[in-house]
Structures are given as C-alpha cells and as structure tokens.
C-alpha cells in the first residue's frame, strides 16, 4: 500500500517539475531523478527540498543533500520517510 509520504512526494514532484497528470504515478523506486529529468537543476533541487520541508513537516540539513539522495525516486522516498519517522 502507498504511504502518505509517497503520495505527498509524488504530488510535490508533479508541482515542482510541472509533470503531466499521472506521470508521477508511474514512478517506481528505480525511476531516475537527478540527471534524468532535465528540469531538475540546482535551482529546482533547492525548490524541491524546500517544498518537501514545508509539506512533509521536516527539516533538511544542507549536508544531508548529496548525489545519492536524488539518484532515484526510491532513494528520495526512503529519505523522506526516515525524516518523517524521526521528527
């Protein structure tokens, strides 16, 4: 079953990247993000993380952000779920 975090994260990606309706529902944990979605540059990453903080109620430290975090949808979701569990 999809977690609440999963649903919220797909919606956030849709809003930030301007994805078509339904596109984010097709993401699997292996779907590549950084380097695979042309819209996702450092400015967009900053916007994405800030929006995640606001809507998921988490704080993301700058030193937690690395290449692996945004490698795939699965890695970003695992990070978000761990952050929410800890907060």
């Amino acid at each position: 079953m999809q977690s609440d975090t999963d649903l919220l994260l797909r919606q956030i990606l849709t809003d930030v990247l301007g994805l078509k309706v339904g596109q984010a529902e097709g993401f699997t944990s292996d779907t590549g993000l950084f380097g695979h979605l042309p819209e996702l540059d450092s400015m967009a990453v900053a916007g994405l993380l800030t929006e995640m903080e606001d809507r998921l109620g988490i704080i993301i430290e700058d030193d937690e952000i690395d290449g692996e975090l945004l490698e795939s949808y699965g890695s970003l979701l695992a990070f978000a779920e761990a952050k929410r569990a800890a907060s």
Partner: protein
Amino acid sequence: MTPLSWPCPLPGGGSTQEYALAFDRGRRCRLLIVPALFDEANRMRRFTVEVMRRLDAAGVDCFLPDLPGSNESLQSLEMQTPKSWIAAMEDAATHFGATHALGIRGGAMLTPGSLPTWHYAPANGASILRQMMRSRILASREAGITETRESLLETGLRDGLTLSGHRLGAEFLRQFQTLTPLAAPILHEITQGTVGGSGLWLRAEPDESREQADALAAILAIGVKA
C-alpha cells in the same frame, strides 16, 4: 497593454524613470500590482500579465511597475533595500492613481500601506532567502566549494551576497531576513487553495495556467468593484 515609464525615487534622493506595463483606460478601479521577487518574478511574469489582460476585459485598470534593480530597470540591485522598494511602490501607486493593490508572493511585503490590498500566496523574506541560499550552496558544491548558510549570511551582512545571480547589498539582506507581508487597512489573503491547482512559482521552468489566471482575475475583479 502599454509600456510606460514612471518617476521612481532613488534610495539616495532624486528620482529616475522606471518601466511599467499598464492597461489604463481611465476607469474608476485601478489596481497596482507588486510583482513576485527574483526567480519567482520570472516564473510568474506571464501569469501576472495574463491576469492583467483579464482584469482589463473585466473593466479594471491595472499597472505592473518594475522594482528598481529588477526586470528592465537600469538601477543597480545592490543599491536597493526593501524600504526603498516599498517607497518606490508607494510612489508608483500615487503616480498611477491606484485605488487598490495586489502583492504576488514576495511582492506582498512591498504593497503600499494605504490602499485596500490583496496578497496572493504571500511569502516572507526568511523563506525566500532560505531557498536562494540553498540553491547557492548546492551550486557551489557542484563546483567543489563548501559553503554554509551561517558563513554566507555572515559574509552577506558585511559585504553583500550574490544569490541565484542577484547581487544583494548588506542592508538589503539585513532588512529582508525579517521582512513579512505588510499590513493594510483592508487586507484579503488569496491562498493557492482558492485559486486552485499548484502554484506556478514552484515550477522549475516558467509555466502558465489559464484556469488559475481566470480564477485570480475573477476574485480580484469582484473584489475591487465591490
């Protein structure tokens, strides 16, 4: 739609000409629009003008002045402060004979205090700054340079700081970090939930939405004519 210029006060005294987009047919309801700030301004500009076209069709005059140091302005952004921007918007309101004001996102922190006002999805200085700092830290890291929020702010408050290509002066940063949407005698907040869909300022690339422009223009047209 007409491009106009208007006399804008300079931070050190004197004045200069700044640019504005206007729909002016000498009508009773005249709305001054304070644009979103920095990168959000680029992402929201087409949407803002689409809202203006609809307001014009609904019988409302509207004016979109440049903030000095942004868009077409020839002034140095580094010389500006939030206070000088507020003074500029007050002068623009007087010059255009505005009867109402709208602040979009960060523009809500700069709306003239004397007019009935709408704030669309207002943002405060701290949250805008947080995102711009993060963007700079990430870009620097890609270039192999380690920066922290604390060190950037310390440098910025002493020497000014370039964030996302915007050169901000020390005094600008000092005022901006605690800036919040301005009060007005009659103030209405329009949330994104009321407009519907997701906010266009979030988008990584500039986008548009006919439905959102229709909704915001309708809320404003009904409000200013009430």
